[in-house]
């Protein structure tokens, strides 16, 4: 088996890796004896392979071992479903905006409710105390009796905290 230069030069890597059959190996060896260009190319391929083979083995970081040994806790499909950075930023920004809005409006809303509540109790207490003070004989006074029947109605209708509780 004789090889021309072009064919022999294409087989140099496989020759280097001992991946040729006996006939091809012999033919490449024969060609190398005659061809300085191929000898040089062969040496360069061999040096390249050696450089790659001498690369240090990359040492995996501790986080890698932790994640690989307990995969159930690892975030699934980190590579495949990773969102673009822009998308993630938008999500974080909207989340932050919602939290900020909630923090800012909570005292406002709560304050309004409290004031409404306070005003109700305030008026109620004021009327009650006023009615009691004004009434010389509470049990015949219409205003006072009206107040008491109002309280009784509230209790009957199932209000757990009748408005009259504060006064009693």
């Amino acid at each position, binding site marked *: 088996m004789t090889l021309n230069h072009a064919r022999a030069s294409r087989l140099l*890597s496989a020759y280097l890796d001992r991946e040729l059959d006996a006939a091809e190996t012999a033919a490449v060896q024969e060609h190398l004896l005659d061809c300085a260009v191929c000898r040089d190319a062969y040496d360069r391929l061999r040096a390249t392979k050696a450089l790659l083979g001498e690369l240090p083995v990359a040492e995996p970081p501790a986080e890698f*071992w932790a994640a690989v040994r307990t995969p159930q806790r690892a975030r*699934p499909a980190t590579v495949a479903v990773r969102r673009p950075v822009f998308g993630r930023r938008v999500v974080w920004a909207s989340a932050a905006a919602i939290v900020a809005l909630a923090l800012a409006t909570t005292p406002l809303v709560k304050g309004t409710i409290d004031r409404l509540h306070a005003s109700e109790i305030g008026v109620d207490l004021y009327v009650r105390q006023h009615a009691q003070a004004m009434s010389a004989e509470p049990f015949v006074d219409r205003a006072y009796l009206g107040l008491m029947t109002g309280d009784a109605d509230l209790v009957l209708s199932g209000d757990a905290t009748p408005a009259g509780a504060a006064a009693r």
Partner: protein
Amino acid sequence: MGRPAAVVSMARPNASQPVSYTTEELARYDAIVQRYARHVYNVAYRMTGNEADARDLSQEAFLRVYRALRRVEPDAPLESWLYRIVSNLHIDLLRKRPRGRVESLDAPVETPRGEFLREMPDPASSPEAIIEREQLDATIQRVLGTLSEDLRMVVVLSDVEGYSYEEIAMSLRVPLGTVKSRLHRARQILQQRLGPYVDARRRGWER
């Protein structure tokens, strides 16, 4: 690498399904990690050239092994499967990255007047630097990164991890002839781009 781990499919396992394994199964998983993790990480590192991506790729590969554990035959060689996952994940990663980083430097540049091959700058800035091992590693890694994905995977599996053509063909599911030609092409490009380092390596042999 041996025979293919055909017992497990490449399809993404159902992520929502919770997995609870017996102690024996978990021990089997640990043994798989023990046996392959370092190699898988190394290949992922040489393919991506950085720690964060290498971690993502190799962790995802092992997550798939974990989910498919019951379908993995005990003692089945998993290299082929693992490297194929890493290769596929790497291709996915390259597709998602901005254009500038996906583009391969050994692909011809298309212009209206035809295709041109890029001229690579000489990687050796000073002769003293050649003896610096760390710089050499970084340069080799950078030059590896200029290869297209298919050439890079073949040369990493062959020259970094030391697999045979047949094992690589099985791993990547390509014909033997394709492995042969890709490897030769990859080495030719590398020796050209690592010119001064290759010369230094040859001089080392002559001494």
